[in-house]
């Protein structure tokens, strides 16, 4: 199929299949999936600028489907998502400016690569430690029962004592998040978490769900199922802003994004529904390979000089 905007020939089946896989990942983990979509679009010869912008547009569509499904399952905290969108957009702008500063200094690729590898590996290491510890604790407390355990959204974490300490910080204004079960938390902590997510999004590219979803769970104390749904809702707003910005610069082939979204729509629904069958720690444990895939891509780029 010929796509005149980016002047490229790409199989629509390939795009729909890629969209489907990213949709499943996005619906299940609440991530954008740009670490797969970007290289997948580059692999079929799409220019880098089009790959980045088109990927963002596709993320918007896939996140709308997944967030709608998560909302129906009661997994979206709209209040939290709207507050986070403000911080994310601010952080993304600062991250983009940081990249420009490093470009002028002439060492952008090396610095960004090292920082991203360190962050990806740290997130994975921490999550594998925490989720494993929580699962072991649950196993000890609840010996294997013959009756199947009902999956609930009430979450347990080995890090919850630290999360409780963060929630006790009295930095005015304090707000409550009834949908997430958080009685009181400083607005500034939410803004800071979303700002950091946005900063990494602007600095490393993509939606930075691999850092925002764990921060929602460990820093704000949001149950994993709600963190996934709320992150997707927040991604709709921030990725729409990114899509608009890239489209004005001529970096979006919306026809490619629309075709990808046909597969993404069904994948995102499957991913979102699947979260109902897993407990929070199991979702977090399954999340571990995602940042590692990101790290492997960066290491490959650093070693070969070919941007995937």
């Amino acid at each position: 199929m010929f796509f005149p905007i980016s002047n490229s020939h790409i199989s629509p089946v390939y795009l729909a299949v890629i969209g489907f896989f990213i949709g499943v990942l996005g619906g299940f983990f609440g991530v954008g999936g740009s670490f797969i979509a970007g290289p997948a679009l580059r692999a079929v010869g799409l220019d880098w600028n089009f790959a980045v912008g088109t990927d963002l547009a596709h993320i918007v569509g896939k996140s709308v489907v997944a967030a709608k499904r998560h909302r129906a399952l009661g997994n979206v905290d709209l209040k939290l998502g709207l507050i986070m969108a403000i911080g994310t957009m601010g952080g993304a702008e600062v991250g983009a400016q940081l990249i420009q500063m490093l470009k002028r200094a002439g060492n952008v690729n090396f610095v960004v690569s090292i920082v991203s590898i360190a962050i990806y590996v740290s997130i994975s290491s921490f999550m594998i430690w925490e989720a494993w510890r929580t699962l072991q604790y649950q196993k000890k407390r609840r010996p294997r029962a013959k009756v199947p355990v009902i999956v609930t959204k009430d979450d347990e974490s080995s890090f919850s004592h630290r999360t409780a300490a963060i929630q006790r910080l009295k930095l005015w204004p304090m707000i409550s998040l009834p949908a997430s079960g958080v009685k009181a938390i400083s607005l500034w902590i939410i803004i800071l978490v979303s700002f950091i997510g946005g900063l990494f999004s602007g600095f490393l590219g993509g939606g930075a769900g691999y850092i925002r979803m764990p921060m929602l769970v460990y820093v704000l104390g949001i149950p994993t199922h709600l963190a996934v749904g709320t992150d997707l809702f927040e991604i709709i707003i921030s990725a729409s802003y990114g899509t608009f910005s890239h489209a004005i610069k001529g970096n979006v082939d919306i026809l490619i994004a629309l075709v990808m979204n046909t597969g993404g729509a069904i994948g995102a629904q499957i991913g979102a529904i699947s979260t109902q069958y897993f407990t929070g720690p199991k979702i977090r444990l399954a999340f571990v390979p995602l940042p590692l895939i990101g790290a492997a891509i960066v290491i490959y780029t650093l070693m070969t000089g070919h941007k995937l």
Partner: protein
Amino acid sequence: MAAASPTKKDRSSTLRAFLVELALYAVFVTGYFFLVLHFLSDWLQDLHLYHVKLYALAAILLIIGQAVLLENVTTWLLRFLRGGRSE
């Protein structure tokens, strides 16, 4: 042992419904490619070349509009094939 068979039955009916849903969805999407995208392509290319701000706005509206439409279609297919149950 008696409790295990309904689960297997449920699983196979869910899988069958999912495969039928995929097939119906594929037919729908193929028609969509040829009809909608074919008609949109020239108009969007013109916007991309000459009215870039309008193109950016149209891009956002199209991707959100399509997502809402496809979500409704897949939800309806799921309900239709599973006799009123969405999942």
